[in-house]
């Protein structure tokens, strides 16, 4: 079979000693970032970008992808032991995981989340393998209007999913689009908004923005009130769930994995949303929903299977449409561009080695991560006893190196500091940062496809609505923006209606 042959070639690439090493480094770093609150996968991937300049693109993506899904494995550890999510996709795991730990069952909780993550990852890799080539073939028929609408939908999803208000998300998105226009304009070669600075003619660097917003900004927030955290002391014996646990949670693992894999494909969808949906679904399907929130192992299994499945399948829109759906994927998008590879429908045909090599490495990586997270869990738990002040120093130094090494100028370190302050302020004022960064990356794609569409239609904006696929996508995007308004109206009517509770 064709797929098997390709996968075989992929394994030949993924199992070369160097690629195995980079996969292992990615998995270890990913688990570490997942375990430690304070530095998320996007910032870590951004930091390692300069290191990957000299690697070949396949090794680079293998390592960076490993960081992303490795964090999905590691993120549950703090949720279970400390009731603090290591990264946003493990927030729901706190609900039942921490309760299990309090009841002396930290071992099975950690075991279930590692096994669930592995299973979700593997299911999702197979989906990536089967769906991506077909989707890429379909995407070849997309014209500029379809691309425009797809980018708009992706951005709207990012806005909708950010925890702040939709209006504020849209404002950040537009600021991101405008920041993306800084530099030399792609169509005419004219300098835009560079204020005569030659530094700005290549545009604002994503790495500097990412390190500032997500690295330094996060540190500044945490510095306001020094946190006190305490590792839950418990014996970590008996990591494997027992037979009774399995009877309860194998269904959750299966449903969580499939659900996560599907949600990851959606533009703007990803690990975070999938974990919430999987938890809610499991609770609804359970015969004993009252057990949830009190230490139900299904409540750990479902979101942990889902978040790793979604992390893996969110590579699908990147590798087939060239549209990154979340921040980590956006950073991998940047890595590919640096290596002169344009992600898009042609990628699988033009770079089959990259596509199949990365897929095979994901299977290898998930197996490595299962080994790293089950027998070695004690090592990661020890990492948690490092006081936050030492972490701050390490994060700051890592961000400095990351920002400096983009162009080897100290100017960028200063720029990173400015973005750090900006990130701190927008967090405080409750503006979401994710739409800004995604819009900055997608802005140039949007500009090009809008201009091409308008040239096709002779300046007629209706083209975006008249083409069926493009119209549908825009309709969905519009629907997303209207849901909060509709919800508010509904709430108001219910409150003022008969039998309502006057506020």
């Amino acid at each position: 079979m064709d797929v098997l042959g390709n996968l075989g070639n992929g394994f030949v690439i993924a199992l070369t000693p160097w690629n195995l090493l980079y996969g292992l480094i990615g998995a270890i770093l990913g688990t570490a970032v997942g375990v430690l609150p304070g530095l998320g996968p996007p910032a870590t991937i951004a930091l390692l970008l300069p290191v990957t300049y000299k690697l070949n693109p396949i090794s680079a993506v293998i390592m960076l992808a490993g960081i992303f899904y490795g964090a999905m494995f590691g993120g549950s550890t703090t949720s279970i032991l400390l009731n603090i999510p290591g990264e946003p996709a493990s927030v729901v795991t706190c609900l039942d995981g921490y309760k299990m730990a309090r009841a002396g069952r930290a071992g099975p909780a950690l075991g279930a989340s590692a096994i669930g993550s592995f299973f979700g990852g593997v299911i999702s890799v197979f989906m990536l393998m089967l769906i991506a080539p077909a989707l890429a073939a379909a995407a070849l028929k997309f014209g500029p209007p379809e691309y425009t609408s797809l980018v708009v939908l992706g951005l709207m999803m990012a806005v909708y999913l950010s925890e702040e208000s939709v209006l504020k998300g849209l404002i950040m998105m537009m600021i991101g689009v405008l920041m993306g226009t800084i530099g030399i304009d792609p169509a005419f070669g004219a300098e835009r908004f560079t204020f005569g600075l030659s530094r700005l003619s290549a545009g604002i660097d994503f790495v500097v923005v990412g390190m500032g917003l997500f690295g330094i900004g996060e540190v500044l927030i945490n510095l306001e009130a020094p946190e006190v955290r305490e590792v839950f002391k418990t014996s970590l014996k008996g990591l494997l769930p027992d037979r009774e646990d399995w009877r309860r949670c194998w269904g959750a693992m299966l449903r969580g994995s499939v659900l996560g894999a599907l949600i990851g494909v959606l533009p703007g969808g990803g690990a975070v949303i999938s974990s919430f949906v999987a938890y809610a679904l499991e609770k609804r399907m359970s015969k004993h929903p009252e057990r949830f929130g009190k230490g139900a192992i299904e409540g750990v299994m479902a979101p942990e299977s889902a978040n790793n499945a979604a992390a893996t399948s969110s590579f699908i829109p990147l590798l087939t449409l060239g549209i990154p759906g979340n921040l980590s994927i956006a950073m991998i998008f940047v890595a590919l561009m640096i290596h002169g590879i344009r992600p898009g429908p042609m990628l699988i045909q033009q770079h089959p080695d990259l596509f199949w090599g990365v897929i095979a490495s994901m299977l290898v990586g998930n197996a490595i991560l299962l080994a790293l997270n089950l027998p070695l869990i004690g090592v990661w738990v020890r990492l948690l006893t490092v006081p936050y002040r030492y972490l701050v120093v390490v994060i700051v130094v890592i961000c400095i190196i990351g920002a400096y090494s983009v162009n080897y100028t100290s100017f960028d370190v200063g720029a990173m500091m400015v973005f750090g302050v900006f990130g701190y302020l927008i967090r405080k004022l409750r503006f979401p940062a994710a739409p800004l960064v995604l819009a900055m990356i997608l802005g140039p794609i949007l500009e090009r496809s809008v201009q091409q569409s308008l040239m096709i239609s002779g300046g007629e904006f209706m083209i975006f609505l008249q083409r069926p696929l493009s119209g549908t996508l825009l309709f969905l995007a519009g629907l997303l923006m209207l849901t909060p308004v509709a919800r508010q109206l509904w709430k108001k009517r219910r409150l003022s209606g008969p039998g309502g509770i006057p506020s």
Partner: protein
Amino acid sequence: MRKTSDLLASAFGMCLGVAVMIGATRLRLGTPTEPQPGFFPFMAAVVLVVLCGILFIQAFLGRSQGAEAFGELWRPALLIAGLFIYSVVLDSLGYVIATMILAAAVLRVLDAKTWWKLAVISVALSIGTYLLFDRLLDVPLPAGILAGVK
């Protein structure tokens, strides 16, 4: 209640949008069929101004979320100041010395318990990362005044 933070933020956004519109007009706008470099930024800026206008009205009517309370500001402020000084002296002092001082300062502010721990960590961190990135990973970092020491 009026939300001052959102009023200020949306006013800033509107000013930014208007500034971009002026700048884009100078780059020439063109027509939708034959857009010039200023066309796309101008449209984006119009949308930004409209959105910020809505937020301004909401904030004025007290319907927006407002800001989180600020905690103790002196620690973040010190880190920002430290990073600013760092970026100024990095090239002349070199990576190792500048990082050592910054790390020691951050640890001191964050209340490291003993002096020797503080010294060991800042020296190990600065030299360790220099060796890792500059020597092992081929990411050149400024040598500064230690340029002669190999």
